[in-house]
């Protein structure tokens, strides 16, 4: 009994000075609706789990990684061969990146299909689109860091794509590369993006995104909202959190198993003067864009094929960003068409990705 009082004393001491009990009260009162689509509510925190793992393994890798042209590849080789269990940490970092981006896509699609972005959650969606772009940039910048042949070529291609955009494109490429070409400066710049600039932006946006979610509460799928009957709700703490813990534990288990049995390998250091190796591929989450650029012919009418493709992708991206404003009548025919577009998008992305591998 004495122990409990000590805990209470510490808690009240802290609460007098910080007002933390308000947070705990909020977490107990926050409600999560339970219905047949409730499973999707777990996707957001799964992303957070994998991001947390990225931060921790990232901290550890940065202890031994050297972001210079001469030492990048050899420092990764050292992590994989000399540092105790280094290959596991690198493997976890690599796999967790893929898992995180996979869940970002799943989360995005679930929001799109359930139309959770409708009023008043438009800003949550828009901050989410920025978070998606940041996650993809994390993947892109991280991919170069081992500085092997494959990652160098993938970066050359990837940073060349913005060039197709008229007027501004050249400057975007120069900004990403730190010059006209991919050099050691590109590597250092990408490292700076990956460990400093992008994390700060991501954290800032994450705070906005999570704050908006807490303020507005969990959304209901459209048809349930319109029925206006009482939906069973679970308090976030403790009922939903314990369920979330189960999901997290299983995900951690899968991540570890996969990381241990399928660790990524390391090719020899990139040679800036060597010809491009065969079979260049970006990471899986860029495959569908890569394929789209491949299938566009070199010239369409008067326009450069690449430019048209990039502009189409940009237009698609902008429409995507403004989706909540475009889908302003979700219950009507327009809304249903947009839901169908979501399914078509899934088929398109999967189809293009598979096609790019054939």
């Amino acid at each position, binding site marked *: 009994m004495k122990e409990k009082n000590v805990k209470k004393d510490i808690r009240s001491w802290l609460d007098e000075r910080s007002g933390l009990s308000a947070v705990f009260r909020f977490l107990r009162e926050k409600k999560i609706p339970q219905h047949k689509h409730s499973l999707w509510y777990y996707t957001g925190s799964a992303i957070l789990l994998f991001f947390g793992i990225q931060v*921790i393994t990232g901290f*550890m890798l940065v*202890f031994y990684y050297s972001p210079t042209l001469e030492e990048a590849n050899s420092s990764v080789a050292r992590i994989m061969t*000399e*540092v*105790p*269990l*280094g290959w*596991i*940490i690198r493997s976890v970092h690599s796999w967790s990146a893929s898992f995180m981006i996979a869940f970002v896509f799943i989360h995005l699609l679930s929001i799109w299909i359930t139309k959770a972005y409708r009023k008043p959650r438009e800003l949550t969606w828009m901050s989410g689109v920025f978070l998606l772009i940041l996650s993809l940039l994390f993947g892109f910048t991280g991919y170069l860091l081992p500085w092997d042949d494959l990652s160098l070529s993938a970066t050359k291609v990837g940073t060349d794509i913005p060039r197709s955009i008229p007027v501004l494109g050249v400057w975007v490429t120069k900004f990403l590369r730190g010059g006209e070409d991919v050099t050691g400066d590109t590597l250092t710049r990408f490292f700076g993006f990956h460990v400093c600039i992008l994390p700060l932006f991501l954290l800032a946006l994450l705070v906005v995104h999570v704050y908006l979610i807490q303020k507005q509460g969990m959304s209901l799928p459209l048809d349930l909202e319109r029925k206006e009957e009482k939906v069973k709700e679970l308090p976030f703490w403790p009922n939903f959190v314990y369920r979330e813990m189960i999901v997290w*534990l299983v995900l951690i288990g899968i991540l570890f198993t996969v990381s241990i049995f399928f660790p990524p390998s390391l090719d020899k250091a990139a040679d800036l003067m060597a010809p491009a190796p065969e079979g260049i591929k970006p990471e899986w989450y860029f495959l569908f864009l890569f394929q789209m650029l491949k299938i566009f012919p070199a010239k369409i009418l008067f326009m450069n094929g690449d430019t048209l493709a990039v502009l189409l992708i940009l237009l698609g991206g902008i429409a995507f960003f403004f989706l909540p404003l475009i889908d302003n009548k979700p219950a009507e025919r327009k809304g249903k068409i947009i839901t169908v577009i979501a399914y078509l998008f899934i088929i398109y992305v999967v189809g293009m990705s598979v096609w790019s591998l054939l």
Partner: protein
Amino acid sequence: MKLRHSLFTRRQFLNGLLGGWLGAFAASLLFPILKFIFPPTREPDEVILPFADFQDMEPNTVKNFAWGSKPGIVKRNDDGSYTAFVAVCTHLDCNVTYLPDQRKFFCACHEGWYDENGIHIAGPPPRPLRRLNLSIEGENLIIKREGGE
């Protein structure tokens, strides 16, 4: 002896089990992380040097060699024998130097003094200089950790 009432409630028991297992799980994940962050010491077991570099040393002179990532000193004594030290001050890890005219090792950081046998004689150093096992085998000078570790 059977107790009339339970020492703790079922809720406390379950909470204890859950918390305990979560702690064990977290600890088992922490272990590889700690192993990664604290890599093993990088001192070599032995260093083999060509004796030819040392056989013409004058008495009361020293020569440096690399003991892993630490500096090492080989000293030729007056009687012609050799002694090897790890040239790191036992106070706060600065590198020491040998002053032949004074027959003393000196650490400039906090003015620590050791005699020609590495025994600490003045200043803050708490222990003598660490000795290494030196042996001459054929053409090689072999330096090992003292005490056969």
